[in-house]
């Protein structure tokens, strides 16, 4: 017996994923800006789903308040741009800001468990929303435009934004991928499976969770940055809305909580639903809520988790598998 991570399928698929990323990078060169903008939205969803899954699927942390970091990213961009920073540099700075702020928040948020953590994070998002509403320079309650983006010609702007979205998505997915494959990944999975047992084995649970929390802070901040870059206008009512959490929960639960591929599938599904149905209609949201609840109750591993379990399939090699090695008997 030996332990292996790469299977033929996963080698093929990892190569395929890289090829998809390269192909996506060429999209703005070929297609209409309308499509480019839509694909940017898709990448934002992928990023958000992956980050929420990092928290809940690998850290056991169910947050209903990740919109706090989306808001910091979005408003941070506006803030830096207003202070004379070039828009795209402002976006990078705002992402770093969101990640930096997640660190002090983690100091106490990670002491909370289950519902306390979930609603505690929600309250933090509400507090941020109120702070923005109190600040006239950020447009208070009525919202604000990222006017500095007008300096770019629209087609170029959309292309730049798309490339930034692609870069962010690739960076954060690769970071999560490497994190899960590192020795830390095994301890994270131990925490997910049984936190108390992991702690008793000497896994530094708090430190591992902090890593995920800060990663998700950066990632959701980046998503917020992309939201304002894509739509050019934000208001606290929508950017700090708990609806973001609803989307994230839907994508991850349907795709597969605690699987690497699942959230990506969930994001593509949500994107397909959003482009097919009129967005924001109550029936559509009733469907999302009911589906998420049903998956939580009846299919907790989600679509991908179930497929993986049934077929023993593994596309991206984040886990380990035990395989029969040829000639093992002789060697032993």
């Amino acid at each position, binding site marked *: 017996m030996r332990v292996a991570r790469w299977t033929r399928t996963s080698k093929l698929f990892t190569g395929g994923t890289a090829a998809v990323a390269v192909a996506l990078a060429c999209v703005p060169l070929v297609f209409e800006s309308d499509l480019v903008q839509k694909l940017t939205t898709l990448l934002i969803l992928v990023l958000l789903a992956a980050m929420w899954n990092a928290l*809940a699927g690998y850290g*056991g942390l*169910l947050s*209903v308040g990740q919109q706090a970091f989306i808001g910091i990213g979005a408003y941070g961009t506006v803030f830096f741009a207003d202070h004379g920073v070039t828009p795209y540099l402002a976006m990078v700075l705002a992402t770093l800001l969101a990640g930096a702020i997640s660190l002090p928040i983690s*100091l*106490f948020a990670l*002491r*909370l*468990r*289950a*519902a*306390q953590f*979930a*609603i*505690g994070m*929600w*309250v*933090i998002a*509400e*507090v941020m929303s*109120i702070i923005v*509403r*109190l600040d006239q320079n950020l447009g208070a309650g009525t919202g604000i435009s990222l006017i500095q983006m007008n300096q770019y010609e629209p087609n170029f702007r959309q292309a730049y934004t798309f490339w930034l979205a692609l870069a962010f998505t690739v960076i954060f997915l690769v970071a999560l991928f490497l994190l899960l494959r590192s020795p830390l990944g095994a301890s994270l999975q131990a925490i997910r499976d049984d936190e108390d047992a992991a702690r008793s084995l000497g896994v530094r649970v708090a430190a591992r969770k902090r890593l995920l929390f800060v990663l998700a802070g950066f990632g959701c901040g980046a998503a917020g940055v992309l939201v304002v870059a894509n739509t050019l206008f934000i208001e606290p009512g929508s950017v700090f809305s*708990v609806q973001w*959490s*609803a989307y994230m*929960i839907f994508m991850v*639960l349907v795709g597969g909580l605690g699987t690497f591929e699942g959230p990506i599938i969930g994001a593509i599904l949500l994107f397909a639903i959003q482009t097919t149905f009129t967005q924001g209609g*109550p*029936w559509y*949201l*009733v469907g*999302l*809520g*009911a*589906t*998420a*609840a*049903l998956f*939580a*109750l009846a299919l*907790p591993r989600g679509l991908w988790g179930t497929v993986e379990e049934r077929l023993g399939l593994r596309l991206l090699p984040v886990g380990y598998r035990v395989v029969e090695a040829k000639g093992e008997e002789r060697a032993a």
Partner: protein
Amino acid sequence: MTLLNAALQGVFLGAFYAVLACGLSIMFGVMRIINLAHGDIAVFGAYVVFVIVEHTGVSAFVAFAAALPVMVVLGYLLQLTVLERSLKGGILTPLLATFGLSIVIQNLLQLTFSPDVRSLGGSAGALTTASWQVTGGLSVSALGIVVLVVAVLVFGALQLFLSRTRFGWMMRATAEDADAAELVGINSRHVYASATALAVATAALGGFFLAIRSVFDPVSGPTQLIFAFEAVVIGGMGSLWGTLLGGIALGVAQTLGAQVHPQFSVMAGHLLFLVVLIARYGGGRIALRVAR
């Protein structure tokens, strides 16, 4: 004097929050779960009362009395259909399922009743407008008194129920050890469903108070949930009287905060909640970490 008056109004407001929080506290106490749809259930209760008033023209109080049995039955069914299943799925499942339920309720209300803002203040008679000027700066509203008295009665009755009645013991026994409760002949499913029915009934009472004190719309629920949860946490999770005090502390913080700046009212409540959380769960460790 204005500060004193603000604090007094905060007590009345806080009594309302305590009623909202009561059901959350019961369900946490008995099943260790937080129902994220609790606020939406309260608002749903307000709509049930609203429909009865619209169709029959009776006073809001009569309509609430009629709505209560409906809510009790719905609460019982909620347990058997959704929550019971979610309890078997681990610590995150009840949160995920009730969060989904919350979105469903909000949007079904939106589809049925439109996003318009409503109030039942008009159908509650003179009670909503009557008030007394105690001294120059201190005023007491009849509604405030009613809510406070009802809150104390609700919590008092619950306390008596849990400490003096056989069904109350059965509920505590099931909360402490559901397996052992089954072994002495207690139907734990029935006890859990009854606890949820009770929680939903008190949520409806909270929704009713919301509707006669101010206004509500289909998306009022999440805010009510946050306030209710803040009251539970400030008062100490799992303690019933603590929830009453926590609600009042939250109400006072909000009305005093409003004295600083009208926009600061809700913020003050949030800050109190976060400070309590830090003090109770993270403060010592953070201080230690910084000291090192």
